[in-house]
């Protein structure tokens, strides 16, 4: 708009400074001429510097071709009136009062503009991503954070769909989408927070995590037109959390892969952590173990010393090793255990850790090795001795029998000769038994049902006179997994145990034979228990040694032979005195691993 100004005072200066430096968007003024009587008026001087025409006569302004607006800034009402009258048709006129108002308006607008600028700066200064969305989820406003994230400028993003830009989706999320509460916010007018949406906001190639807040904006009361969405990056928090989870998982995998039993109890003795091996001991799941105490899991005796050992480790404040034996379902488990206090970051003891290694098998093998060595040595010796001793014994028998044949009646030596003969024959029996024992008999291993072996043996045994006054209780499993074995030799073992038991009760009493599956289905067991006086505790460990016997008769080889047979079957045999009296023998054989 071609404009001429009359009056070059301070007001004029301010106005043209403003126009030149900022421009008036609302009113584009093209100031072409400034008139003032005073040549040195500040507005005139400024205009001269800017190359705007100046004059001293107000009449000049009307000569300006294409003039559209005249602004009067003299501040003189008379001048203003004259100029207004003088103003030709079609040329607008603004006097100094109007200019004042106009100026004030500009000032207000300027202030608003500055404030908006300020707000924008504040918005941009927020490190989070902020955007304002309309009802259709179109982006209206963004902050610098948004641009940093997406690489889109304000102009580029305006009008784009939020889900397209941030979620890489073509269509808006459904109202029911738990991952995007936009609709809900819009409908309810309530602010929504999504804590840590992972994998939701994506920039290609990078997974980012944000806490998202959606705040409804009301244009007027109850009318929501926009939603402010902020994204607070929480990558580090997520990563940290992941690390914590991974550490826990690593720990879990670590302890669960261990064959050893590993557990942590709190100071009240409740299980806080337990690995699978620990839980397996009780046939439980790990989660069923947590919170329980030793007294809820072990028989009272074992629970007492377990608690005592834990206390000891806490008291001493350092790892302590124990050799422990627990009895679970009549199965003895030998453990090598380390117990040590568990401390928190402050160094305070908060629990007790326990790592137990099952050394049952190891102990058994060690004992078997010792026994096997002993037996092998005896076997070799026996064969050698037997061979060498036969000829002298032949001689002794021949000469003694010869002497006996020649004795006169009433010769007191007759009895002596008979003793020599009797004892020589006893030597013969010992040698024979020794060789039976040392003989390397071949085994015929086949798929064997122990119930059948027990049944056959019982059929044999029950006919014998020694069992006539004995009550035989049978407690046989309906089904047993097959074992690999020599039916006859296993039958011999069972026969041996039964005859032993019968002798133990001296022909009168009760014998119980039972078969069952033990060791979590891995092994089959045959037990023979009697109601006899039991075996003295100090020698019970030796009953399987050759020539060991508690009976007046017998050579003490029956159990040693049985032991050898069971060992060659990969099993074990053990003897124990029962609490209720009598002895129990257990033969345990591994289940046959069927080839699939």
């Amino acid at each position: 708009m071609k404009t001429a100004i009359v009056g070059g005072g301070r007001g004029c200066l301010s106005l043209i400074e403003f126009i030149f430096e900022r421009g008036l968007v609302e009113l584009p003024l093209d100031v072409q001429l400034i008139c003032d009587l005073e040549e040195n008026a500040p507005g005139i001087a400024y205009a001269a510097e800017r190359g705007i025409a100046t004059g001293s006569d107000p009449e000049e302004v009307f000569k300006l071709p294409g003039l559209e607006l005249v602004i009067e800034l003299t501040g003189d009402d008379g001048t203003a009136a004259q100029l207004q009258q003088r103003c030709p048709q079609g040329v607008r006129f603004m006097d100094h009062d109007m200019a004042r108002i106009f100026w004030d308006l500009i000032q207000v607008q300027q202030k608003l503009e500055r404030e908006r600028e300020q707000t924008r700066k504040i918005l941009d200064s927020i490190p989070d991503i902020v955007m304002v969305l309309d009802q259709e989820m179109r982006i209206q406003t963004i902050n610098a954070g948004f641009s940093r994230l997406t690489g889109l400028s304000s102009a580029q993003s305006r009008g784009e769909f939020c889900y397209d830009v941030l979620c890489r989706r073509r269509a808006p999320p459904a109202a029911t989408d738990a991952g995007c509460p936009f609709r809900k916010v819009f409908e309810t007018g309530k602010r929504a927070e999504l804590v840590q949406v992972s994998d939701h906001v994506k920039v290609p190639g990078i997974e980012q995590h944000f806490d998202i807040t959606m705040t409804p904006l009301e244009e007027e009361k109850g009318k929501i037109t926009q939603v402010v969405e902020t994204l607070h990056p929480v990558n580090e928090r997520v990563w940290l959390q992941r690390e914590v989870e991974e550490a826990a998982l690593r720990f879990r995998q670590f302890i669960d892969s261990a064959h050893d039993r590993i557990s942590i109890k709190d100071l009240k003795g409740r299980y806080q952590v337990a690995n699978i091996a620990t839980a397996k001991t009780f046939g439980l799941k790990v989660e069923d173990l947590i919170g329980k105490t030793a007294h809820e899991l072990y028989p009272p005796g074992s629970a007492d010393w377990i608690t005592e050992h834990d206390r000891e480790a806490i008291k001493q404040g350092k790892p302590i090793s124990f050799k422990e034996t627990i009895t679970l379902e009549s199965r003895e488990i030998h453990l090598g255990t380390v117990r040590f206090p568990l401390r928190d970051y402050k160094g305070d003891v908060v629990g007790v850790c326990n790592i137990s290694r099952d050394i049952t098998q190891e102990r058994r093998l060690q004992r078997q090795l010792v026994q096997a060595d002993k037996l092998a040595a005896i076997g070799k010796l026996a064969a050698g001795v037997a061979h060498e001793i036969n000829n002298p014994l032949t001689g002794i028998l021949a000469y003694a029998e010869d002497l006996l044949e020649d004795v006169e009646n009433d010769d007191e030596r007759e009895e002596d000769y008979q003793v020599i003969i009797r004892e020589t024959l006893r030597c013969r029996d010992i040698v024979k038994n020794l060789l039976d024992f040392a003989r390397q008999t071949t085994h015929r291993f086949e798929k064997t049902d122990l119930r059948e072996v027990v049944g056959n043996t019982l059929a044999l045994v029950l006919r014998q006179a020694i069992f006539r006054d004995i009550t035989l209780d049978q407690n046989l499993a309906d089904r047993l997994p097959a074992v690999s074995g020599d039916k006859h030799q296993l039958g011999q073992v069972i026969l041996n145990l039964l005859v032993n038991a019968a002798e133990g009760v001296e022909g009168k009493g009760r014998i119980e034979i039972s078969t069952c599956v033990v060791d979590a289905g891995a092994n089959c067991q045959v037990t023979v228990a009697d109601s006899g006086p039991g075996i003295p505790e100090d020698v019970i460990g030796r009953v399987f040694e050759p020539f060991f016997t508690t009976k007046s008769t017998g050579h003490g080889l029956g159990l040693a032979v049985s032991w050898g047979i069971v060992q060659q079957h990969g099993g074990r045999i053990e003897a124990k005195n029962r609490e209720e009296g009598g002895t129990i023998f257990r033969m345990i054989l591994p289940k046959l691993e069927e080839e699939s």
Partner: protein
Amino acid sequence: MSEDTKVLVVDDEQVVLDSVRKHLRREAYEIRTVLSGTEAVEILDSGWPEVVITDLMMPGMDGLELLERVRDSSPAIPVIMITGYATMRTALQALRQGAFDYIAKPFTRAELQGVVIRATRQISQENEPEEADPDPRHHLGGHCWIHIEADTTARIGLARSFVDVVGEVSEVELPAVGDYLEQGSVCLRLLTADGRSHTLWSPLSGSVLELNEALRENPGLAAKDPFGEGWLVRLDPANLEEELKDLDL
């Protein structure tokens, strides 16, 4: 028999030779003893012995070789093997190769006399055709028959050749039910009316399942009806297939 039976005894240990001599001194035997198979062969070649008793394990020519020589040159001479308990399997092999019987060291007077008297009786027997055993059974030498029953248990009784030389049985010392017998070890003893004792070896390894209880009342049945009422024991064989190979069909 008017003259004493000539018995040659072979063993590499003098004490065994002396023992045999002592055990048999009251009996009607003429005895010569030698310490080696080679010496035995010399006497054998002279045609002197009627019965040979030889140790199985000897340095130089062993018992089995000597047996072979006797079988070749004088098949009518019964050969009794002396064995240790440890070499029972070799003794069984000797039976298969035609030995008359064997005896395990250390032996008693009765045991030795029993087997030698049977050998003597066999050579004095007229060679009339023996009554054949009624159905095809397995045999342990000339000792006993084994019949494998339908349930694969084994019934045992005296063989005809054994019955023919023992005479009347007056007592049978049976094993106990449940006893485990090794093949070739003592199964039972027979006492005969003439006061002799005879050892019957177990033809198979196995547990004793059943005894012929009738023999307790009437032991004579064992020899009178050896293939029927006089059977002895029933075994549950432990290793039938393998052990049958050691027996004559």
